[in-house]
């Protein structure tokens, strides 16, 4: 009995439940009637080339939709005690080249970046509210880190960019990063980049077309 539950009934129920869309569609419709925006939570790491690709790509796909691009940088994530952590980071470079090619960009780095090297960027961005300045900063920072530079990541260069976007100096808030990490974990994703929208989450580097389709289904279509 237990064997049947684990091997058949459990997986089937998970799959069946994943096809239920009515609550999400009703929620989206209610927001639209009330004149409110949709929201796409994007959990990403500045140290991760797949995240850089996804932030740029999804940003483009959200243009013209009444959807808030809620960019939520994280530092600590991944499967606990993952034995494949280092091979995955190395492979991310190889894969990042392919992802970049899809959007016409060439990866400029040949080595992984340690998460702590970009933690200051996460602490800045996590403290800012979603909106055009934050989207511009994150998109441009991802582009510069992964597609336009190699070597050390100098805080001064990115502070200049921050000022261009926000007209003020960044105020780091590491606690806001921890909150993003907790929020991401509570949503389900264990790795970045992950997009949460309408009650579903997607690995954002591989499912951006699905995300766009789901937004269309929810009624958050491109309008302009």
């Amino acid at each position, binding site marked *: 009995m237990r064997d049947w539950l684990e091997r058949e009934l459990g997986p089937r129920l*998970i799959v069946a439940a994943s096809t239920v869309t009515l609550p999400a569609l009703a929620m989206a419709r209610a927001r639209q009637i009330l004149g409110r925006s949709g929201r796409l939570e994007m959990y990403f790491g500045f140290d991760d080339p797949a995240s850089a690709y996804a932030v740029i790509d999804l940003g483009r796909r959200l243009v013209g939709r009444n959807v808030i691009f809620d960019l939520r940088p994280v530092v600590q994530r991944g499967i606990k005690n993952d034995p494949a952590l280092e091979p995955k980071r190395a492979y991310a470079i190889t894969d990042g080249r392919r992802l970049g090619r899809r959007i016409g960009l060439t990866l400029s780095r040949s080595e992984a970046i340690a998460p702590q090297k970009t933690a200051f960027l996460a602490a800045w961005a996590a403290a800012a509210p979603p909106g055009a300045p934050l989207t511009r900063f994150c998109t441009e920072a991802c582009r510069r880190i992964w597609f336009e530079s190699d070597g050390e990541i100098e805080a001064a260069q990115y502070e200049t960019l921050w000022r261009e976007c926000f007209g003020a100096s960044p105020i780091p808030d590491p606690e806001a990063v921890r909150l993003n990490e907790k929020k991401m974990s509570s949503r389900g994703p264990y790795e970045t980049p992950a997009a949460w929208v309408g009650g579903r989450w997607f690995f954002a580097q591989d499912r951006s077309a699905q995300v766009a389709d789901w937004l269309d289904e929810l009624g958050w279509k491109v309008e302009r």
Partner: protein
Amino acid sequence: MAARVDYFYSFRSPYSYLSAPRAFALADDYEIDLRFRGVIPMMMRGQSVPTAKRIHTLRDAKREADRLKMPFGHIHDPLGEGATRCLGVSEHAIDLGRQREFVLSAGQGIWSEATDPATEPGLRLICERAGLEWEGCYAALSDPAIADRVEANTQELLDIGHWGVPVFVYEGEQFWGQDRIDDLALVLSDTGLDRRL
């Protein structure tokens, strides 16, 4: 001589199942020798898979299956004996040149028909649908040479530093995931291996 592409596959991986029709079709479209390499599932190799990952994998695989117009959802998880028996028969199928038929049949059975390959009726159905005679398949299950081949495939995946499936390896370059088949096809085209031109 056709260029070699190694295709590492697990019968317990829904993404392997989703990759199979397009993976085998690569050999139709490109001048390649696609080598099917069945490997022992991660959880039978002592690796743990978090619950969140297991749940997400099923949900995501369902969405991908719908996109690819492949049946999915009436599942029988083959972890253990079922996966081991499929691996054994897949090596036998390679010897007979029917690995494509067997892998597609097994995937269909496991992920969309809840066929249990750990049982004789289940595995027999999968084998005979693939055009394999049951007696030969049954004999392969207890052939130590075949078990050694499966072990060797699994060890090679570990030796190249990879952790999951499906993985394609062409000229030393790894392509992990059913989402990277198009990228592999692009590289094969760039190398001038496209048969369709």
